[in-house]
């Protein structure tokens, strides 16, 4: 057991050391530390969506809406925008210990609002309706620059203050520099190690991700988590066992949305700029793919999926940008226009991503690193006792008991 914790501590230490290493490597540098920071935000998002899809089995395709709500909340409450349009006196600069819980609560409320009307719907209807909600949120953000300029429309909100704690002032006069107690924008050093702002952000996000992982794990094994999974497997049977379907589903929506809202607020502070562009349907699908690729319901899988899908595209972009001039110079038998279309980094990336989604669903629907239970369900016919799989820490995992009747159950519903 002690060994267990030591392993986790080592893993965390490795993740803490990662940005310093990346920063030191010449061809990676701060750009890649920044990418790692975004990867952490995606992990947070994927963990949130995992609660909704993985645990409760509700396919939410408008998840990015909650991310948008968190992001816009932070943007409005700590940027000069509201002051500029005359809705606030002074430049708002709320401290994070107010904004982040507020983002969590607001997102959760929206989660309940979205969830309540669609609870009765079956899985695939739910997907389309939530997708509609996500689009509605985005279209409103795109158009709410009139009659009252709240979101500044497609231009988005810029000059967002970095993450900071400030006990005294919630706003400051125009033109004045805010007085902050602890800002992630400041440089600091520990044990002679220079910590740049982008690394501080990463470390802060990492801490929140670790918190989220612990929370997810506790939820998974809690009474509520088990109730969610029971609902996912068979609603009728779960209700017959006395589970309150409505409350449980709403709770799943709210919990998932909370993660999204917090992640959105952090994103806003990290990027310093938000616009509706960042919250398109494609982003929702991207987060969904992270959960699916890693393995729905499996925390380690989801983390892995999020890391792969947020870092790979960047690697891909570098690779394509590097290869493009070379190919354009040397391949002459195909027209240059066609080549340029084919070698477009974002198109190629999405193409590969779509293909990955197809292949994973077709050949490995349980994901790359699934939980034991899920794998057993999806491979009901070829199920055979396998050797205990090594866990995150290398020690054999305790195999979850999978009752025989579950193995042979006709699982035609998620």
């Amino acid at each position, binding site marked *: 057991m002690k060994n267990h914790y030591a392993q986790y501590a080592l893993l965390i230490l490795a993740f803490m050391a990662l940005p310093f290493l990346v920063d030191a490597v010449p061809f990676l540098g701060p750009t890649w530390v920044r990418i790692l920071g975004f990867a952490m935000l995606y992990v947070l998002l994927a963990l949130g969506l995992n609660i909704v899809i993985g645990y409760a089995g509700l396919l939410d395709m408008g998840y990015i809406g909650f991310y948008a709500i968190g992001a816009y909340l932070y943007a409005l409450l700590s940027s000069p925008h509201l002051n500029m349009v005359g809705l606030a006196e002074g430049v708002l600069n709320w401290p994070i210990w107010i904004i982040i819980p507020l983002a969590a609560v607001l997102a959760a409320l929206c989660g309940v609002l979205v969830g309540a009307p669609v609870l009765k719907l079956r899985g695939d209807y739910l997907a389309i309706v939530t997708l509609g909600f996500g689009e509605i949120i985005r279209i409103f953000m795109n158009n709410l620059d*009139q009659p009252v300029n709240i979101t500044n429309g497609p231009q988005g909100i810029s000059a967002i203050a970095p993450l900071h704690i400030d006990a005294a002032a919630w706003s400051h006069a125009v033109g004045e520099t805010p007085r902050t107690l602890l800002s992630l924008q400041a440089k600091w050093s520990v044990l002679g190690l220079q910590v740049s702002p982008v690394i501080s952000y990463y470390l802060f996000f990492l801490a929140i991700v670790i918190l989220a992982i612990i929370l997810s794990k506790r939820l998974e094994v809690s009474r509520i988590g088990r109730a969610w999974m029971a609902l996912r497997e068979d609603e009728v049977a779960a209700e017959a066992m006395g589970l309150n379907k409505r409350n449980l589903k709403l709770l799943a929506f709210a919990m998932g949305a909370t993660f999204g809202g917090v992640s959105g607020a952090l994103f806003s502070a990290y990027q310093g700029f938000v616009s509706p562009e960042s919250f398109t349907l494609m982003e929702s699908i991207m987060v969904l793919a992270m959960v699916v690729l890693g393995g729905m319901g499996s925390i380690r899988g989801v983390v892995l999926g999020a890391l792969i899908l947020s870092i790979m595209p960047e690697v891909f972009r570098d690779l394509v940008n590097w290869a493009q001039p070379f190919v354009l110079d040397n391949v002459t038998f195909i027209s240059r226009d066609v080549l340029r279309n084919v070698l477009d980094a974002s198109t*190629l990336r999405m193409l590969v991503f779509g293909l990955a989604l197809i292949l994973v669903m077709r050949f490995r629907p349980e994901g790359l690193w699934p939980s034991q239970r899920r794998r057993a369900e999806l491979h009901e016919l070829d199920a055979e006792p396998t050797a205990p799989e090594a866990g995150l820490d290398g020690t054999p995992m305790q195999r979850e008991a999978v009752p025989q009747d579950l193995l042979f159950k006709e699982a035609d519903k998620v």
Partner: protein
Amino acid sequence: MQATLDILLQQVLNGLVLGSIYALVALGYTMVYGIIGLINFAHGEIVMVGAMVTISVLTMLAGFGFAPGVLTLLLAIMIAAIVCMLMAQGMEKFAYRPLRKAPRLTPLILAIGISIFLQNLAMMIWGRGYKTFPEVVETRPIEVFGATITNVQMSIMVISVVIMFALWLLVDKTRLGKAMRATAQNQEVAGLMGININRVISATFVIGASLGAVAGVMRAVNYGQADAYMGLLLGLKAFSAAVLGGIGNLFGAMAGGILLGLIESLAAGYTGQITGGFLGANYQDIFAFIVLILVLLVRPNGLMGERQADRA
């Protein structure tokens, strides 16, 4: 007031044109859903491919010296429809068929993957920008009680009605149609009755795809252009239309499509007036979703859908 009424007739006509396109796409969704209970997310992409292939073929035919005209257009549409049908058949055979017994979400997510894949493949082939639809048929405006409609828009409506009638004949009167209805009711029993269900399901996909291809061309002609992104939103709206009418029900999809077209065009024309300029026509795209949500709240089985027990 007179101005408002003039707009009304114009918007109704626009809505009918838009609605007949939605209806054709919605039929593709509803047929597939009716028979295997799958939301074929990639159907919108098939519509897009139909439009893009037609444009490419028309450009190519013009290069070969074909005179622009109705026959050239028909030839192009036929080629596009064949491409779409082959795509749908391949999709069904290699992606959906092996997953027919899998949990519901698996094929749905797979369909989303196909949709993304096709969209980006189209971007590689045709580029990111839009393609203008070549002027193959001369467009003439027709005056109807003060409102204008073009001969092209008129033919869009007429052709949709003809296609829908033909589809009804196919489903209601032919052996294949009977087999489709039987398969939709119960695959296993239909199989026991000697129906080759794989073939029937494949045929359903293929017929839906051909309707989609025609609808894609109509949309491209109506707006004068097409791009690789057009399938996604069109598909979502058409799906909303199918749900509005009661998914799985052919007449429901037709009625739902036309109703959605009317709602959208009237809403786009009047939201500004009703809300006193607070909400403008740029909210047009959300009406489909709002309608979808409201319908599912009030009448989850759609306007014409029958009540059916949850398939556990």
